[in-house]
């Protein structure tokens, strides 16, 4: 590298002045950085920010709710319905909420984690310390939820999360019987939502009861593999044996050795929680290599409507998965009584839903706000963090996403929702859809038809 000689060298006095000016400008730049996060918020924040309190004093009584979700990146599938959901929620909160006769304005600050765990943690910290949110919410996979929970627990901020297996949130986040969640409430099903429901569907057909599993080396896979709190003891109780070929890395391009293990062991049932691209790879290679299981009940990869149609040669036909929400589920919104079918129709007709297919994650993201509203109303004082957390403890309510019951969860601060079994099929006009083949643990869910074997 060459460096041109300076045009002229300056007298040292002038240089010093330049040095000082430049250092000052660096210092100034540092200082200028500070309020940046505040700028894109709203004016009400500055009123709350000054006193270091929770924004509860003065004339403007605004409840600030932070919402962190992966709007971009690899986890977008969980949140593509969020723009519509947020517009519905903002409409609900437009007139504020009334708590013990006092009406509070509600401000929702939604942030995109970019599907990056570190970014989610940073945003959580920013929302807690700068925006001083009264309640922080996060959704979709442990990669988004866990960093936010960690920050909330560390800062003592009420936290409400959903859409991640609860074992991955509790045990994966280092919590447990000795170290309960103090500030966080989380609702979703856990491993039991798969392990207790998958065998119900398998029981419908004749197999050798050997289950091959795909558990990657990530948060979910680790939680499923746990010998005590994982998947194996649940299905063994139903008389099935698990064949675990070992942890593989997300993004694996060659599943040959795993497929060979399944063939050698005579596996007839496939289960697991691979990420969507990995399952497409696995399933295509299984077909090429002549591995023909009778049933496949796969979580995570099949949750979203885009995966199955993307599997080549219509190999997605007959794939089954544990589902927590669909048009026929007997749920209704606590906001206005919207049922799942109405929600789907409204979503499809809305400008935000144009070009999108409804998915199961959106109603649960929306249920966060339903639970938040009821919790805030029950707290008596929305700015009293302890009272708000305690109010969530007593919640047992119906939402669009299902019955959320924190009073009888498997772990303090956890509510589980029931699951059923869905199976994908291609309709006569070439559209992909899934139907309920087992009601699982969902009460009063109509079953469309029994589980069908995979056709090879």
């Amino acid at each position: 590298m060459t460096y041109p000689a300076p045009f002229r060298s300056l007298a040292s006095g002038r240089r010093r002045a330049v040095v000082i000016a430049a250092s000052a400008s660096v210092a100034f730049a540092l200082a200028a950085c500070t309020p940046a996060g505040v700028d894109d918020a709203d004016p009400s924040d500055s009123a709350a920010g000054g006193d270091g309190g929770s924004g509860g004093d003065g004339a403007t009584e605004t409840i600030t709710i932070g919402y962190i979700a992966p709007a971009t990146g690899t986890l977008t599938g969980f949140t593509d319905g969020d723009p519509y959901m947020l517009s519905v929620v903002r409409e609900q909160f437009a007139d504020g909420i009334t708590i013990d006769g006092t009406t509070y304005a509600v401000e929702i600050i939604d942030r995109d984690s970019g599907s990056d765990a570190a970014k989610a943690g940073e945003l959580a910290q920013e929302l807690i310390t700068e925006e001083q949110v009264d309640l922080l919410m996060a959704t979709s996979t442990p990669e988004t939820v866990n960093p936010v929970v960690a920050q909330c627990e560390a800062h003592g901020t009420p936290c409400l999360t959903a859409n991640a297996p609860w074992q991955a949130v509790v045990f994966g986040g280092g919590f447990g019987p000795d170290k309960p969640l103090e500030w966080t409430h989380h609702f979703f099903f856990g491993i039991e939502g798969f392990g207790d429901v998958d065998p119900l569907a398998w029981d419908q057909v004749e197999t050798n009861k050997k289950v091959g599993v795909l558990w990657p080396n990530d948060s979910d896979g680790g939680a499923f593999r746990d010998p005590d709190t994982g998947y194996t003891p649940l299905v063994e109780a139903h008389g099935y044996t698990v064949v675990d070929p070992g942890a593989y890395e997300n993004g694996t391009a060659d599943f040959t050795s795993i497929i060979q293990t399944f063939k050698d062991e005579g596996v007839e049932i496939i289960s697991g929680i691979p990420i969507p691209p990995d399952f497409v790879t696995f399933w295509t290679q299984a077909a090429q290599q002549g591995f023909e299981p009778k049933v496949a009940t796969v979580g995570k990869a099949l949750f979203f409507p885009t995966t199955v149609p993307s599997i080549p040669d219509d190999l997605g036909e007959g794939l089954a998965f544990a589902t927590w929400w669909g048009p026929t589920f007997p749920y209704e919104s606590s906001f206005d009584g919207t049922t799942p079918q109405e929600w789907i129709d409204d979503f499809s007709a809305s400008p935000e839903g144009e070009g999108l297919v409804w998915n199961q994650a959106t109603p649960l993201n929306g249920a966060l706000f339903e639970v938040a509203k009821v919790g805030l109303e029950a707290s008596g004082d929305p700015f009293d963090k302890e009272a708000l957390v305690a109010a969530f403890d007593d919640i047992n309510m119906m939402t669009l996403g299902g019955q959320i019951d924190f009073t009888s969860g498997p772990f303090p601060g956890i509510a589980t929702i029931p699951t059923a079994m869905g199976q994908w099929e291609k309709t006569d006009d070439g559209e992909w859809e899934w139907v309920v083949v087992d009601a699982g643990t969902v009460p009063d869910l109509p079953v469309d038809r029994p589980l069908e074997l995979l056709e090879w």
Partner: protein
Amino acid sequence: MEPLVPGQVRVDRLRRRMITVQIIGAGVIVALAMAPYVFEPAVTSQWIKLFYLITLATAWNLLAGFAGMVSVGQQAYIGLGAYGVFVFNDLGLDPYSSALVASVAIGVIAFALSFVAFRLRGGYFAIGTWVIAEAVRQIVIRFDSLGAGRGRGIEDYTADPVMRNLFTYWLALGILTATLIGSLFLLRSCMGVALQSIRDNELAARALGVDVSRAKRIVFVLAAVMAALAGSVICLQQIGVQSPSQIFSVSFSAFMIFMVLIGGIGTLEGPILGAIIYYVMDLWFSQMGLWYLVVLGVLAIAVTLFLPQGIWGALRARFDITLFPVGHRVVAVPHPAAPAPAAPAVRAPDPQNDTTAASATTEG
């Protein structure tokens, strides 16, 4: 004008300016250290990210900008630094001491790895470091005690969030300070001259008797230690590692390269400027979704095309400014013995005509 005659020149290491920089620098650092008493902790904790970004950019710049080693595997040491906090925390140290002890241990690991990495050069070196980083990740996530593929939280941690933010802030500031001071003095030392000669032409440097591999190895280890410290700060700020693939992500290297290229490679000031630019953009634009990445990319392309020396390089060429004097210049010493009829007692070189002195100047 006096010619540069051996024995009649002296090497000016810009000592006066160095003293100024030290005084101002000390002032800035003390001011930043006191900042939590003036601002709310919430405000200063936002700067932690800026501090570790500058640390990372400076470390990468030492590697690529001065020692000519383009590494895309620094995330290995970031991740090890983060996991090192768990390891030494489990052994009974508090998280902050763990961070420091871990960085020393990682320096040792990096020293060992350097013998592997240095068998490769140029593009192969870049890929090799990436492979090493990936291998390190694969090994780390085999340990169940470290949370395997799930990540892990810090268990033994100060309960008070305000104090924790403060300590993390000071740790980040301390690491930044140590990095900048270390780099400044390293580059002003004999080693610094050797490094700058390696940067400009490795073969020529070797021919002149510079111990190239020793100099490179020292820089490699130092950069690893800096990355490890930055990684431990990330871990402390995130209260654990939430996702091993994230802490070992190659995107850290991408951002380091981005910051250094934008700011100006081969200068000490450039990475700082680049880190500030990246930090501010992240703060303001990261909620724009995918467009944010497009903007970052366009900025990187524009700077590489039109300001190949980076923003600071362009500023320096235009205004001749330097914050950190790491260069030296050779100036003629006026000596009374020589007959000097044309220039009687020119003590200070004429700024307009002193081309000889100027052309002998190097800047870091």
